[in-house]
């Protein structure tokens, strides 16, 4: 371990602000793209389900018209 | 089926529709910003990365880029509504047309002008503008971009019916932008010499008030001409 105490680790030899800023934004962007992709999956599956329900509604309306 | 006439309802309805449309097609918000960023990057590549030189030219660069990127976003205000017929419905509604036009231009400013103002610190970073002139740039853009939208909307209204209206519109509108450009850049210059630049801001504000009052009337008559 290069640093003797945790507070030194945070201070990072005086450059703490820059190091943690870059690691922070990097983590933020990586998480952002990951979560947005997973969210897209949910959204697409939901829209497929919605399309299925819509076709169901149209089929029902047709049956009612016939009867 | 009674009709209640509240101008506020019309104003919010038109703004809400335009904002909804803009957020549905994100490109409409992102493209002018990207254009602005690329134009800003071209200048250092053209004149060299020397920080001092860039800082001195930054106000001019930012404002010319702002002018061009508003121009880019202008023809979209009425084009879709003109081509799908909603513009006719807006004219044939019992509400006065200038009010509808005012709502449309405000929505357009929120879509193109506001993000520009919010992104200025990033552009200042690229041109290493000092903090004083950054504040001045934000103020001048805050007053200037709605002014650009209002004046530009007149050009857009006039050329919406024409096929190749884009270039023609910029020829009509750019001369009208010159006073705005002069006062805005001079405000930023005086601020970089840490002098008081409230005089220029006052003039910009006055121009904005005049534009808000008179432009919608000019725009609605321009639209009536384009629709006929």
């Amino acid at each position: 371990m290069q640093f003797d105490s945790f507070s030194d680790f945070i201070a990072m030899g005086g450059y703490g602000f820059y190091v943690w800023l870059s690691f922070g934004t990097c983590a933020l962007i990586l998480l952002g793209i990951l979560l947005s992709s997973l969210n897209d999956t949910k959204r697409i599956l939901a829209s497929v389900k919605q399309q299925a329900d819509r076709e169901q509604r149209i089929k029902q309306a047709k049956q009612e018209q016939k009867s | 089926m009674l009709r209640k006439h509240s101008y506020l309802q019309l104003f919010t309805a038109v703004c809400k529709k335009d904002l909804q449309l803009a957020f549905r097609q994100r490109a409409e918000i992102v493209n002018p910003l990207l254009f602005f960023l690329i134009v800003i990057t071209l200048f250092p590549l053209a004149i060299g990365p020397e920080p001092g030189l860039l800082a001195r030219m930054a106000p001019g660069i930012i404002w010319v880029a702002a002018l061009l990127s508003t121009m880019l976003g202008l023809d979209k205000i009425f084009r879709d509504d003109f081509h799908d017929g909603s513009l006719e419905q807006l004219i044939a509604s019992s509400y006065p047309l200038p009010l509808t036009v005012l709502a449309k231009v405000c929505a357009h400013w929120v879509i193109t002008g506001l993000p520009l103002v919010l992104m200025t610190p990033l552009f200042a970073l690229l041109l290493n503008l000092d903090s004083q002139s950054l504040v001045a740039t934000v103020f001048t853009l805050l007053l200037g971009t709605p002014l650009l939208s209002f004046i530009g909307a007149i050009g857009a209204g006039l050329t919406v019916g024409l096929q190749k209206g884009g270039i023609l519109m910029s020829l009509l509108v750019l001369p009208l932008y010159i006073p705005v450009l002069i006062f805005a850049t001079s405000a930023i210059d005086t601020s970089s010499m840490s002098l008081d630049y409230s005089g220029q801001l006052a003039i910009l504000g006055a121009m904005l008030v005049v534009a808000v009052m008179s432009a919608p009337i000019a725009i609605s008559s321009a639209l009536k001409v384009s629709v006929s």
Partner: protein
Amino acid sequence: MWKWLHPYAKADRAYQLCNTLLPYFAVITVVCMVVGWVWGLAYAPADYQQKDSYRIIFIHVPSAILSMGAYSSMAIAAIVALVWQLRNAELAVIAIAPVGACATAIALITGAAWGKPMWGAWWVWDARLTSELILLFLYLGVLSLYHAFEDKKAAGRAASILAIVGVINLPIIHFSVEWWNTLHQGASITKFNTEAIDPSMFWPLMVNIVAFAAFVGTVTLIRLKNEILQREKHRPWVRQLIKRG
């Protein structure tokens, strides 16, 4: 000639392939990312000149390498899509683009954060940072072109063409920016070079590069699955997928 490639032309087979590969990529990413970051941040020795601010190298260099890597793999997918008319390759182009753009953004931000203590300014028109910025514009160009089309098939093809044109221009841009930088060498900017890396810093860097590459792979696979689902929305096999939950 590419016989083994043909079964994956069918969408659901490609979907299965992504599903099987995904867990492996995810595991590699998590392991390498944790090891790389802890090693780079806590255990790697400080640089004698820049002391601890050089630790940013452990994410700046991998993201810069990955931004280039992602663009070239995107271009390769585009070439495969256009030459062999493989529709799934077009989907890959669109899957990689946003991830590459994020890698470039990270490279830019970390480059600026690393440059600040060294040169006192957040943004310096240094050759590598400038070409990284232009690469970001290329990515955003491909993305906004793709989203400008209503019909997604034409969008995929147009984006692939732009990706190929972009990859051809990359070396030219890089070379001209380098030349532009030396041309204005008079300006008081030192070249942004990293000295020969001794082993104690080399290995954590390698681990981080692998971690980043695995991350880009994982997210691309997820996005590729999304694109396939989006494109095959009306197919029955997608409907079963919903029922199975």
